[in-house]
């Protein structure tokens, strides 16, 4: 069968960055749930991800998805010291805000707000963008994420030193680097394989 582009159902495109729950509609055909083999399930890592059209689309290259998912989980969920979860999510949200991924920003802004309890600051990042003043500690993390996300990359020793002045140790700084770098991966997939939609029923 000839492969084709999917026409998403009628939906409302989110026109602002938001912490609201969004849907994501694929432009290419995900694998059908009933077509998932053991190798695909291994790629999904969590069986619950079989519900997501995004992950079932990526499951077309299951080995790449499996390694990507496990990289993701260690960068964001490994509880062994380093950067607190709230700030790892902040780096993800800031990177997504800068690259322009409304869907990714919504998910990780929610997580950052949940873990930090700093809803107003997170919302300011979404509303005003990466130059919003969030206090020096968060500003340093946002600036580092932005400098890592430009092409060519502009991150340098001055960003490391600013993070150190904000009392991040080197493991925490490595966490900022990985979180921002990982969202340069995630943003490109989310932005180019489908589109966000205001969740049905809202």
């Amino acid at each position, binding site marked *: 069968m000839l*492969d084709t*582009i*999917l026409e998403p159902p009628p939906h409302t495109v989110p*026109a*602002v960055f938001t912490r609201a729950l969004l849907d994501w509609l694929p*432009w*290419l*055909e995900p694998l059908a749930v009933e077509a998932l083999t053991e190798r695909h399930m291994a790629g999904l890592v969590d069986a619950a991800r079989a519900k997501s059209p995004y992950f079932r*689309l*990526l499951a*077309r*290259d299951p*080995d*790449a*998805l499996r*390694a*990507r998912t*496990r*990289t993701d*989980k*260690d*960068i964001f969920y*490994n509880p*062994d*010291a*380093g950067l607190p979860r709230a700030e790892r999510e902040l780096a993800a949200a800031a990177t997504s805000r*800068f*690259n*322009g991924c*409304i869907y990714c920003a919504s998910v990780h802004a929610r997580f950052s707000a949940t873990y930090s309890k700093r809803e107003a600051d997170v919302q300011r990042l979404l509303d005003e963008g990466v130059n919003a003043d969030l206090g020096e500690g968060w500003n340093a993390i946002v600036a580092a994420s932005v400098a*890592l*996300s*430009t*092409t*060519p*990359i502009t*991150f*340098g*020793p001055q*960003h*490391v*030193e600013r993070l*150190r002045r904000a009392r991040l140790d*080197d*493991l925490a700084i*490595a*966490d*900022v*680097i*990985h979180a*921002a*770098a990982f969202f*340069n*991966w*995630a*943003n*490109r*997939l989310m932005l*180019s*394989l489908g589109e966000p939609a205001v969740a049905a029923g809202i």
Partner: protein
Amino acid sequence: MPGMDSDVIDTLVGIKPGSALDAIRNRRPDARNQAQASYRALFAPEIPGEVTATERFAVAAFVTGLHGDAETAAFYTAGLATSGASAELRRAIDTAIAAAKGHGPYGSYPAGPLTREDTIGPTHPVGAETRRVLGSRLAAAFDHMHLLVFHPRDATPAALQALLDASWSTTDIVTLSQIAAFLSFQIRVVAGLRALAGAA
């Protein structure tokens, strides 16, 4: 292929066993091992599928070349040579990189309050002579890679249709997209850890 048995990020950053950065990377063992596993899955897959090794490394040489980090680009250019790419193809990729280099990210938002943040930049189809050497399939991939590297928020279904029209299947497009997106990660981890080492 280069780097199939040694960790690519360690190699490109210059991380030595027992160093401070080696210890830091060991605190996130899956991030370390699975970044390498991602590299293997995309550049030496157990089940190669329909995307050839030369196509994978050609796209990688272009993407890393656009990022302008000489060492990372040289690594994938070496992989391209090992994959059996002709000297003519390698020269055509160098030409494509020189013609398409720029600064990102830019692009447009859905019409509304974010329109004031729209930043316009070039779309950059590869030139006719380069296209002739690359062939229509690889040339379409390069056009898409330029979008993913510099202005991913401009992505549209039409961009994917152009890939389908150039004989890339849905599954191939997932692999191509993963290559561009993974490299965007790997390049940044390398640059970031290098800066961290340099600031020590």
